[in-house]
């Protein structure tokens, strides 16, 4: 699966800093300085308290698997789709990569890993 091709993010003014940071190997989340809540994917206005006082924060990239499903067949081969919950709180959809899919478990510790595209790299997770 090493040569699996992923689509390049299109990007927009709101999310550009996320993709710039990704190029430097940093996985960013947003945090609201008004209510203190972190969120993902990044928005300029907090989805919880609707304040515009949101700031970028580098995530530890440490997470646990909330749930997953193994897609047994696809045009690009089998893959594991999952939701993982970051140490900082937010959960996000991803793929668990570079792993033995049949050994994945809910609650398992994973960490972020970036995969290249023709644009900015994309965040994935792999067993820690």
């Amino acid at each position, binding site marked *: 699966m090493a040569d699996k091709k992923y689509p390049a993010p299109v990007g927009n003014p709101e999310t550009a800093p996320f993709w710039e940071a990704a190029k430097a190997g940093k996985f960013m989340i947003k945090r609201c300085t008004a209510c203190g809540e972190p969120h993902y994917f990044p928005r300029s206005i907090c989805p919880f308290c609707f304040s515009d006082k949101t700031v970028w924060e580098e995530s530890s990239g440490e997470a646990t698997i909330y749930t997953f499903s193994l897609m*047994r067949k696809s045009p690009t081969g089998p893959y594991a*789709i999952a939701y993982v*919950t970051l140490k900082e709180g937010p*959960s996000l*959809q991803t793929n668990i990569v570079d792993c033995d899919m049949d050994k994945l478990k809910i609650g398992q510790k994973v960490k972020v890993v970036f995969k290249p595209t023709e644009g900015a790299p994309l965040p994935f997770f792999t067993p820690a």
Partner: protein
Amino acid sequence: MTIKGKAYIAGIYEHPTRHAPDKSTSQLHAEVAKGAIEDAGLTKADIDGYFCAGDAPGGLMPMADYLGLDMKKLRHIDSTDTGGCSYLIHLGHAAEAIAAGKCSIALVTLAGKPRTGPMPPRAAGPEADFETAYGQTTHNAYGMCAMRHMHDYGTTSEQLAWIKVAASHHAQYNPHAMLKEVVTVEDVLNSPMISDPLHRMDCCVVTDGGGAMIVTTPEIAKSLKKPLVRLIGHGEATKGPRGGKDLDLTYSAGIFSGPRAFEEAGVTPKDMKYASIYDSFTITVLMQLEDLGFCKKGEGGKFVADGNLISGTGKLPFNTDGGGLCSNHPVNRGGMTKILEAVRQLRGEAHPKVQVKNCDLAIAHGTGGLLGNRHAASTCILERV
């Protein structure tokens, strides 16, 4: 203000086709519209409200023109698109419009051909860059719900299989059903794994086709010849990951739409004689039954097991047409057929082998989008008068 009892379903039609390579999608919309209008005993010239969703080629304006709806008469239009539950929401919105005097005879149509060819992609949402690459499909999005439900509540593949078994028991009596063979729990468990933990037989069929209904005022409904079926409660809701806070894929937006509908109707899940529950996958049914209050959260597996959903045997007869799991899932949108079979049950027009005795209260409930991600839900409580 309430819509309770203010709108009646006077006409229904489900296209008998399950594969229509020789027809256009617009043609199917016209055929189901004609069927529902004739079932009601009305004419096209009577239509003064029109509802359709994203399956209508080009949207509402081209479809209203193609159907030749009377532009001098058509005074209420609504193209709300919430995927598979759009038509349940249309029913609620039609009732609101009728109660407000904005229209008196509304037509709702659904049609399309996903079995003949792939459906056009949906427009990207703000999440696209952060999700598209991960290969989310309907199968694995619902697979992730099932995986977590099993983890949290001990739900088993055997329990999920009972939902398909019940649907197949009903489908054997539906001459139009795509899959008429009665299957066993073992058959489901032995079918190929598609996206863990969902097997092929946990998934619904992919069919061409469509359906339509006519929603009207109490006065007009009573002037027509069909048995009287009215809407007495309606709810709609959405749910999504919402920034990733407190993600919980074991419940759906049905947990919000259900109580809204039951409260408006002044009835409870226990009062329901029949249930049309959206069955894109077996896990969809199990989660909806819990969310709607037919059993406690986490006890859906026990509730559906041992044939409890089979008409004549179980306590809650469901999807007696065979549902999306066996009969029909036109355009990958099951909301319309959920209403149609509920109306057949209330009219006493279901197949005699699956007709519920004295069926005077029914629920039609559906979801749209992906339970494992952003989705909507709509609940309709229907009553025979």
